[in-house]
Protein backbone atom coordinates (compact mmCIF):
# COMPACT_ATOMS: atom_id res chain seq x y z
CA UNK A 1 0.00 0.00 0.00
CA UNK A 2 1.27 3.47 -0.87
CA UNK A 3 0.50 6.77 0.76
CA UNK A 4 0.17 9.97 -1.24
CA UNK A 5 0.48 13.14 0.83
CA UNK A 6 -0.47 16.26 -1.13
CA UNK A 7 0.00 19.63 0.52
CA UNK A 8 -2.21 21.70 -1.75
CA UNK A 9 -5.47 21.26 -3.55
CA UNK A 10 -3.71 21.46 -6.89
CA UNK A 11 -1.39 18.64 -5.89
CA UNK A 12 -4.29 16.65 -4.49
CA UNK A 13 -6.27 16.91 -7.72
CA UNK A 14 -3.25 15.95 -9.77
CA UNK A 15 -2.63 12.89 -7.63
CA UNK A 16 -6.30 12.01 -7.75
CA UNK A 17 -6.23 12.09 -11.54
CA UNK A 18 -3.04 10.07 -11.72
CA UNK A 19 -4.11 7.48 -9.14
CA UNK A 20 -7.84 6.95 -9.39
CA UNK A 21 -7.52 3.75 -7.32
CA UNK A 22 -6.05 5.59 -4.36
CA UNK A 23 -8.72 6.00 -1.69
CA UNK A 24 -9.09 9.56 -0.40
CA UNK A 25 -8.90 9.83 3.36
CA UNK A 26 -9.20 12.81 5.66
CA UNK A 27 -10.39 11.95 9.16
CA UNK A 28 -10.16 8.22 8.56
CA UNK A 29 -13.10 7.44 10.80
CA UNK A 30 -14.80 5.33 8.13
CA UNK A 31 -11.90 4.03 6.05
CA UNK A 32 -9.63 3.02 8.91
CA UNK A 33 -12.33 0.77 10.37
CA UNK A 34 -12.33 -1.23 7.15
CA UNK A 35 -8.54 -1.21 6.96
CA UNK A 36 -8.12 -2.27 10.60
CA UNK A 37 -10.56 -5.14 10.09
CA UNK A 38 -8.66 -6.31 7.03
CA UNK A 39 -11.69 -5.68 4.84
CA UNK A 40 -10.14 -2.90 2.78
CA UNK A 41 -6.68 -3.01 1.25
CA UNK A 42 -6.60 -0.11 -1.19
CA UNK A 43 -3.50 0.10 -3.35
CA UNK A 44 -2.88 3.57 -1.98
CA UNK A 45 -4.20 6.18 0.43
CA UNK A 46 -4.67 9.73 -0.78
CA UNK A 47 -4.26 11.66 2.46
CA UNK A 48 -6.15 14.95 2.26
CA UNK A 49 -5.50 16.02 5.85
CA UNK A 50 -2.84 18.53 4.88
CA UNK A 51 -4.82 20.33 2.18
CA UNK A 52 -5.62 23.67 3.79
CA UNK A 53 -8.01 24.74 1.04
CA UNK A 54 -10.39 21.95 2.03
CA UNK A 55 -10.63 23.11 5.62
CA UNK A 56 -12.06 26.54 5.18
CA UNK A 57 -15.57 27.82 5.45
CA UNK A 58 -16.87 31.06 3.98
CA UNK A 59 -19.98 33.09 4.24
CA UNK A 60 -20.83 35.51 1.44
CA UNK A 61 -24.01 36.90 -0.07
CA UNK A 62 -26.26 34.78 2.02
CA UNK A 63 -24.46 31.59 1.04
CA UNK A 64 -22.31 29.39 3.18
CA UNK A 65 -19.54 27.17 1.86
CA UNK A 66 -18.13 24.51 4.16
CA UNK A 67 -14.94 22.82 3.06
CA UNK A 68 -14.93 19.04 2.89
CA UNK A 69 -12.10 18.87 5.42
CA UNK A 70 -14.00 20.64 8.18
CA UNK A 71 -14.40 18.36 11.16
CA UNK A 72 -17.59 18.04 13.15
CA UNK A 73 -15.85 19.55 16.16
CA UNK A 74 -14.99 22.67 14.16
CA UNK A 75 -18.45 22.80 12.64
CA UNK A 76 -20.01 22.75 16.10
CA UNK A 77 -17.74 25.61 17.16
CA UNK A 78 -17.56 27.76 14.05
CA UNK A 79 -21.01 27.35 12.53
CA UNK A 80 -22.95 27.76 15.74
CA UNK A 81 -25.74 29.71 14.06
CA UNK A 82 -26.77 26.63 12.07
CA UNK A 83 -28.50 24.87 14.90
CA UNK A 84 -29.56 21.68 13.07
CA UNK A 85 -26.06 21.26 11.73
CA UNK A 86 -24.60 21.74 15.19
CA UNK A 87 -27.09 19.27 16.66
CA UNK A 88 -26.11 16.76 14.01
CA UNK A 89 -22.41 17.40 14.63
CA UNK A 90 -22.82 16.94 18.37
CA UNK A 91 -24.63 13.65 17.85
CA UNK A 92 -21.73 12.18 15.88
CA UNK A 93 -19.87 9.55 17.86
CA UNK A 94 -17.70 10.91 20.59
CA UNK A 95 -15.37 13.89 21.06
CA UNK A 96 -12.58 11.72 19.66
CA UNK A 97 -14.57 11.03 16.51
CA UNK A 98 -15.82 14.58 16.15
CA UNK A 99 -12.31 15.98 16.16
CA UNK A 100 -11.44 13.92 13.08
CA UNK A 101 -14.62 13.01 11.18
CA UNK A 102 -15.29 15.46 8.37
CA UNK A 103 -18.36 16.60 6.54
CA UNK A 104 -16.56 15.65 3.35
CA UNK A 105 -16.32 12.13 4.68
CA UNK A 106 -20.07 12.03 5.29
CA UNK A 107 -20.61 13.26 1.74
CA UNK A 108 -18.06 11.01 0.07
CA UNK A 109 -19.13 7.89 1.92
CA UNK A 110 -22.77 8.73 1.19
CA UNK A 111 -24.21 6.38 3.74
CA UNK A 112 -27.91 7.06 4.31
CA UNK A 113 -26.99 7.07 8.00
CA UNK A 114 -24.45 9.89 7.64
CA UNK A 115 -25.43 12.30 10.36
CA UNK A 116 -24.85 15.58 8.54
CA UNK A 117 -26.63 14.48 5.39
CA UNK A 118 -30.28 15.05 6.41
CA UNK A 119 -29.25 18.56 7.38
CA UNK A 120 -27.62 19.20 4.02
CA UNK A 121 -30.73 17.91 2.32
CA UNK A 122 -32.95 20.13 4.40
CA UNK A 123 -30.70 23.05 3.50
CA UNK A 124 -31.13 22.15 -0.19
CA UNK A 125 -27.35 22.08 -0.29
CA UNK A 126 -25.15 21.79 -3.32
CA UNK A 127 -22.15 19.50 -3.35
CA UNK A 128 -19.01 21.07 -4.85
CA UNK A 129 -16.72 18.62 -6.57
CA UNK A 130 -13.40 19.41 -8.16
CA UNK A 131 -10.93 17.82 -10.52
CA UNK A 132 -8.20 18.90 -12.82
CA UNK A 133 -10.95 19.38 -15.36
CA UNK A 134 -12.55 22.04 -13.20
CA UNK A 135 -15.14 22.51 -10.51
CA UNK A 136 -18.75 21.45 -10.70
CA UNK A 137 -21.74 21.92 -8.51
CA UNK A 138 -24.50 19.43 -8.15
CA UNK A 139 -27.62 19.47 -6.01
CA UNK A 140 -27.43 16.99 -3.14
CA UNK A 141 -30.23 14.81 -4.44
CA UNK A 142 -28.57 14.45 -7.82
CA UNK A 143 -25.20 13.79 -6.24
CA UNK A 144 -26.36 10.93 -3.99
CA UNK A 145 -27.60 8.17 -6.27
CA UNK A 146 -27.87 5.20 -3.94
CA UNK A 147 -26.55 3.73 -0.69
CA UNK A 148 -22.86 4.66 -0.63
CA UNK A 149 -23.13 5.73 -4.27
CA UNK A 150 -22.50 9.17 -5.72
CA UNK A 151 -21.81 10.79 -9.07
CA UNK A 152 -18.27 11.56 -8.01
CA UNK A 153 -15.97 10.75 -10.93
CA UNK A 154 -12.77 8.75 -10.31
CA UNK A 155 -10.68 11.87 -10.81
CA UNK A 156 -12.83 14.07 -8.59
CA UNK A 157 -12.66 15.06 -4.93
CA UNK A 158 -15.42 16.51 -2.83
CA UNK A 159 -14.32 20.09 -2.22
CA UNK A 160 -17.16 21.00 0.06
CA UNK A 161 -20.81 21.80 0.27
CA UNK A 162 -22.70 25.07 0.08
CA UNK A 163 -26.19 26.30 0.69
CA UNK A 164 -28.22 29.39 0.66
CA UNK A 165 -28.92 30.37 4.23
CA UNK A 166 -32.57 29.98 5.17
CA UNK A 167 -33.84 32.25 7.90
CA UNK A 168 -35.89 30.36 10.40
CA UNK A 169 -35.71 27.78 13.13
CA UNK A 170 -34.82 24.16 12.54
CA UNK A 171 -33.72 21.04 14.35
CA UNK A 172 -32.03 17.70 13.91
CA UNK A 173 -32.76 14.51 15.84
CA UNK A 174 -31.63 10.93 15.56
CA UNK A 175 -32.70 7.79 17.36
CA UNK A 176 -30.52 4.90 18.45
CA UNK A 177 -30.82 2.14 21.03
CA UNK A 178 -28.60 3.80 23.62
CA UNK A 179 -27.90 7.36 24.66
CA UNK A 180 -24.62 7.95 22.86
CA UNK A 181 -22.41 6.57 20.13
CA UNK A 182 -25.13 5.20 17.90
CA UNK A 183 -25.53 4.81 14.21
CA UNK A 184 -28.94 6.31 13.58
CA UNK A 185 -31.87 3.94 13.31
CA UNK A 186 -33.68 6.95 11.93
CA UNK A 187 -32.88 10.66 11.71
CA UNK A 188 -34.80 13.76 10.78
CA UNK A 189 -33.97 17.36 10.04
CA UNK A 190 -36.56 20.08 9.72
CA UNK A 191 -35.75 23.57 8.53
CA UNK A 192 -38.06 26.53 8.10
CA UNK A 193 -37.51 29.20 5.50
CA UNK A 194 -39.46 32.22 6.72
CA UNK A 195 -38.71 34.30 3.62
CA UNK A 196 -39.92 31.67 1.20
CA UNK A 197 -42.55 30.43 3.64
CA UNK A 198 -41.32 26.94 2.99
CA UNK A 199 -40.69 23.92 5.14
CA UNK A 200 -38.02 21.38 4.41
CA UNK A 201 -37.96 17.95 5.98
CA UNK A 202 -35.20 15.41 5.32
CA UNK A 203 -35.02 11.84 6.57
CA UNK A 204 -31.93 9.73 7.26
CA UNK A 205 -31.44 5.97 7.61
CA UNK A 206 -34.90 5.17 6.27
CA UNK A 207 -34.25 4.83 2.54
CA UNK A 208 -31.40 3.95 0.18
CA UNK A 209 -30.44 7.62 0.22
CA UNK A 210 -31.43 10.66 2.22
CA UNK A 211 -34.95 11.62 1.18
CA UNK A 212 -37.08 14.66 1.55
CA UNK A 213 -40.78 14.49 2.36
CA UNK A 214 -42.36 16.82 -0.21
CA UNK A 215 -45.98 16.10 0.69
CA UNK A 216 -45.30 16.73 4.34
CA UNK A 217 -43.41 19.89 3.45
CA UNK A 218 -46.23 21.23 1.30
CA UNK A 219 -48.77 20.39 3.96
CA UNK A 220 -46.80 22.14 6.69
CA UNK A 221 -46.12 25.17 4.51
CA UNK A 222 -49.86 25.50 4.04
CA UNK A 223 -50.72 24.94 7.67
CA UNK A 224 -48.12 27.01 9.50
CA UNK A 225 -49.45 30.38 10.71
CA UNK A 226 -46.63 32.32 9.08
CA UNK A 227 -47.92 35.72 10.08
CA UNK A 228 -48.87 34.80 13.59
CA UNK A 229 -46.14 32.94 15.46
CA UNK A 230 -48.19 32.92 18.67
CA UNK A 231 -50.92 30.93 17.04
CA UNK A 232 -50.98 27.21 17.67
CA UNK A 233 -51.36 24.51 15.11
CA UNK A 234 -54.23 22.11 15.78
CA UNK A 235 -53.14 18.65 16.94
CA UNK A 236 -54.76 17.10 13.88
CA UNK A 237 -52.48 19.10 11.61
CA UNK A 238 -49.41 18.10 13.57
CA UNK A 239 -50.47 14.47 13.37
CA UNK A 240 -51.11 14.71 9.65
CA UNK A 241 -47.67 16.21 9.15
CA UNK A 242 -46.14 13.30 11.04
CA UNK A 243 -48.09 10.80 8.99
CA UNK A 244 -47.03 12.37 5.70
CA UNK A 245 -43.40 12.47 6.76
CA UNK A 246 -43.48 8.80 7.72
CA UNK A 247 -45.09 7.94 4.38
CA UNK A 248 -42.05 9.38 2.63
CA UNK A 249 -39.76 6.89 4.34
CA UNK A 250 -38.83 3.63 2.60
CA UNK A 251 -37.11 1.80 5.44
CA UNK A 252 -35.87 -1.77 5.59
CA UNK A 253 -35.43 -4.29 8.37
CA UNK A 254 -31.81 -4.68 9.36
CA UNK A 255 -29.68 -5.65 12.33
CA UNK A 256 -30.24 -2.24 13.94
CA UNK A 257 -33.99 -1.96 13.66
CA UNK A 258 -37.17 -2.89 11.85
CA UNK A 259 -38.85 -0.95 9.05
CA UNK A 260 -41.97 -0.59 11.17
CA UNK A 261 -40.09 1.01 14.03
CA UNK A 262 -38.22 3.31 11.68
CA UNK A 263 -41.43 4.56 10.13
CA UNK A 264 -42.86 5.07 13.59
CA UNK A 265 -39.80 7.04 14.67
CA UNK A 266 -40.04 9.32 11.65
CA UNK A 267 -43.64 10.08 12.48
CA UNK A 268 -42.81 10.93 16.08
CA UNK A 269 -39.70 12.97 15.26
CA UNK A 270 -41.56 14.88 12.56
CA UNK A 271 -44.33 15.88 14.96
CA UNK A 272 -41.86 16.92 17.60
CA UNK A 273 -39.65 18.84 15.18
CA UNK A 274 -42.66 20.79 13.91
CA UNK A 275 -43.80 21.69 17.41
CA UNK A 276 -40.27 22.67 18.43
CA UNK A 277 -39.98 24.85 15.37
CA UNK A 278 -43.26 26.57 16.09
CA UNK A 279 -42.20 27.10 19.71
CA UNK A 280 -38.86 28.49 18.59
CA UNK A 281 -40.65 30.99 16.31
CA UNK A 282 -42.51 32.47 19.22
CA UNK A 283 -40.77 35.48 20.67
CA UNK A 284 -39.96 34.89 24.31
CA UNK A 285 -42.83 36.03 26.52
Amino acid sequence: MDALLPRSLEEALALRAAHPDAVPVAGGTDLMVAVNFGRARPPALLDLSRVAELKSCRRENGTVFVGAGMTFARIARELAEFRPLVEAARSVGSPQIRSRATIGGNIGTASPAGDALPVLAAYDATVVAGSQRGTRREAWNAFFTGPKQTTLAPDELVLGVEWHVAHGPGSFAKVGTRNAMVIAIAGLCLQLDEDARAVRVALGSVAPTIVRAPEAEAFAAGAIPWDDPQSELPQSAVSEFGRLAAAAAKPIDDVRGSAAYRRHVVEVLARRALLWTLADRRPAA
Partner: protein
Amino acid sequence: MKIHTTVNGLEHEVDVWPGASLLALLRDELGLSGSKNACEQGECGSCSAWVDGELVCSCLVPAVQADGAVVRTVESLGGGDRLHAVQDAFLATGAVQCGFCTPGMVVAAVDLLERNPEPSDETIREALAGNLCRCTGYQKILDAVHLAAAELAS
Protein backbone atom coordinates in the same frame (compact mmCIF):
# COMPACT_ATOMS: atom_id res chain seq x y z
CA MET B 1 7.16 4.74 4.21
CA LYS B 2 9.32 6.94 6.39
CA ILE B 3 7.63 9.54 8.51
CA HIS B 4 8.83 12.08 11.05
CA THR B 5 6.73 12.59 14.10
CA THR B 6 7.09 14.05 17.58
CA VAL B 7 5.69 11.86 20.30
CA ASN B 8 5.64 12.97 23.92
CA GLY B 9 8.25 15.56 23.15
CA LEU B 10 10.67 13.24 21.37
CA GLU B 11 11.29 13.30 17.64
CA HIS B 12 11.15 10.02 15.79
CA GLU B 13 11.81 8.82 12.29
CA VAL B 14 9.73 5.72 11.73
CA ASP B 15 9.11 3.39 8.86
CA VAL B 16 5.39 2.68 8.69
CA TRP B 17 3.18 0.52 6.54
CA PRO B 18 0.70 3.02 5.04
CA GLY B 19 -2.24 0.87 6.12
CA ALA B 20 -1.18 1.06 9.76
CA SER B 21 -2.91 3.25 12.28
CA LEU B 22 -1.27 5.70 14.64
CA LEU B 23 -2.15 3.23 17.41
CA ALA B 24 -0.09 0.53 15.71
CA LEU B 25 2.77 2.99 15.25
CA LEU B 26 2.71 3.92 18.94
CA ARG B 27 2.50 0.37 20.20
CA ASP B 28 4.50 -1.65 17.71
CA GLU B 29 7.12 0.83 16.47
CA LEU B 30 7.65 3.09 19.45
CA GLY B 31 6.96 0.63 22.27
CA LEU B 32 4.36 2.93 23.81
CA SER B 33 1.82 0.33 24.81
CA GLY B 34 -0.17 2.56 27.17
CA SER B 35 -2.72 3.27 24.42
CA LYS B 36 -4.82 0.13 24.09
CA ASN B 37 -6.53 -1.70 21.25
CA ALA B 38 -9.94 -2.93 22.30
CA CYS B 39 -12.12 -2.44 19.24
CA GLU B 40 -10.04 -1.09 16.30
CA GLN B 41 -12.95 1.02 15.18
CA GLY B 42 -13.12 4.08 17.36
CA GLU B 43 -16.03 2.85 19.47
CA CYS B 44 -14.32 2.32 22.80
CA GLY B 45 -11.81 5.15 23.25
CA SER B 46 -9.16 2.97 24.86
CA CYS B 47 -6.70 4.19 22.24
CA SER B 48 -7.32 7.89 22.99
CA ALA B 49 -4.39 10.21 22.42
CA TRP B 50 -3.74 13.75 21.23
CA VAL B 51 -2.70 14.73 17.71
CA ASP B 52 -1.78 18.41 17.37
CA GLY B 53 -3.62 19.12 20.58
CA GLU B 54 -6.86 17.40 19.61
CA LEU B 55 -8.29 14.32 21.31
CA VAL B 56 -8.50 11.46 18.83
CA CYS B 57 -8.96 7.72 18.62
CA SER B 58 -5.48 6.77 17.50
CA CYS B 59 -6.80 3.53 15.97
CA LEU B 60 -8.57 5.60 13.33
CA VAL B 61 -5.72 7.98 12.53
CA PRO B 62 -3.69 6.73 9.58
CA ALA B 63 -0.07 6.54 10.75
CA VAL B 64 1.02 8.61 7.77
CA GLN B 65 -0.98 11.52 9.16
CA ALA B 66 1.36 11.59 12.15
CA ASP B 67 4.07 12.81 9.79
CA GLY B 68 4.87 16.34 10.89
CA ALA B 69 2.40 16.14 13.73
CA VAL B 70 2.83 16.45 17.47
CA VAL B 71 1.46 13.41 19.26
CA ARG B 72 0.84 13.05 22.96
CA THR B 73 -0.11 9.85 24.78
CA VAL B 74 -0.96 8.75 28.29
CA GLU B 75 2.74 8.22 28.86
CA SER B 76 3.22 12.01 28.73
CA LEU B 77 1.16 12.56 31.88
CA GLY B 78 2.78 12.92 35.27
CA GLY B 79 6.47 12.18 35.20
CA GLY B 80 9.01 10.31 37.25
CA ASP B 81 7.30 9.49 40.54
CA ARG B 82 4.54 12.04 40.11
CA LEU B 83 1.09 11.26 38.85
CA HIS B 84 -1.11 13.74 37.02
CA ALA B 85 -3.96 14.93 39.23
CA VAL B 86 -6.40 12.97 37.09
CA GLN B 87 -4.39 9.76 37.47
CA ASP B 88 -4.21 10.22 41.22
CA ALA B 89 -7.91 10.98 41.40
CA PHE B 90 -8.72 7.75 39.54
CA LEU B 91 -6.79 5.84 42.18
CA ALA B 92 -8.27 7.77 45.06
CA THR B 93 -11.88 7.17 44.07
CA GLY B 94 -11.51 3.54 43.01
CA ALA B 95 -12.18 4.34 39.36
CA VAL B 96 -9.77 1.65 38.17
CA GLN B 97 -10.65 -2.04 38.07
CA CYS B 98 -9.19 -4.04 35.22
CA GLY B 99 -7.63 -0.84 33.97
CA PHE B 100 -7.89 -1.55 30.25
CA CYS B 101 -10.05 1.52 29.60
CA THR B 102 -8.09 3.59 32.10
CA PRO B 103 -5.37 5.14 29.93
CA GLY B 104 -7.92 6.27 27.35
CA MET B 105 -10.31 7.43 30.05
CA VAL B 106 -7.54 9.39 31.78
CA VAL B 107 -6.51 11.05 28.51
CA ALA B 108 -10.11 12.01 27.73
CA ALA B 109 -10.59 13.35 31.25
CA VAL B 110 -7.39 15.39 31.08
CA ASP B 111 -8.54 16.77 27.75
CA LEU B 112 -11.88 17.77 29.24
CA LEU B 113 -10.38 19.47 32.25
CA GLU B 114 -7.88 21.34 30.12
CA ARG B 115 -10.80 22.84 28.21
CA ASN B 116 -13.39 23.00 30.97
CA PRO B 117 -11.97 23.17 34.52
CA GLU B 118 -15.31 22.86 36.33
CA PRO B 119 -17.54 20.54 34.34
CA SER B 120 -20.98 19.45 35.43
CA ASP B 121 -21.99 15.78 35.54
CA GLU B 122 -23.71 16.15 32.17
CA THR B 123 -20.67 17.74 30.60
CA ILE B 124 -18.43 14.98 31.91
CA ARG B 125 -20.80 12.33 30.58
CA GLU B 126 -20.88 13.91 27.15
CA ALA B 127 -17.10 14.27 27.11
CA LEU B 128 -16.50 10.65 28.11
CA ALA B 129 -19.31 9.18 25.99
CA GLY B 130 -16.71 7.74 23.65
CA ASN B 131 -14.82 5.87 26.37
CA LEU B 132 -16.35 2.51 27.20
CA CYS B 133 -15.77 0.81 30.53
CA ARG B 134 -17.05 -2.64 31.32
CA CYS B 135 -15.90 -2.96 34.92
CA THR B 136 -16.75 0.14 36.93
CA GLY B 137 -20.24 1.23 35.90
CA TYR B 138 -18.70 4.71 35.45
CA GLN B 139 -19.82 6.06 38.82
CA LYS B 140 -16.37 6.33 40.31
CA ILE B 141 -14.98 7.68 37.07
CA LEU B 142 -17.36 10.61 37.43
CA ASP B 143 -16.20 11.01 41.02
CA ALA B 144 -12.58 10.98 39.86
CA VAL B 145 -13.10 13.75 37.32
CA HIS B 146 -14.80 15.94 39.93
CA LEU B 147 -12.03 15.22 42.40
CA ALA B 148 -9.34 16.02 39.86
CA ALA B 149 -11.11 19.23 38.90
CA ALA B 150 -11.12 20.29 42.53
CA GLU B 151 -7.45 19.35 42.90
CA LEU B 152 -6.41 21.25 39.81
CA ALA B 153 -8.39 24.30 40.85
CA SER B 154 -6.64 24.57 44.21
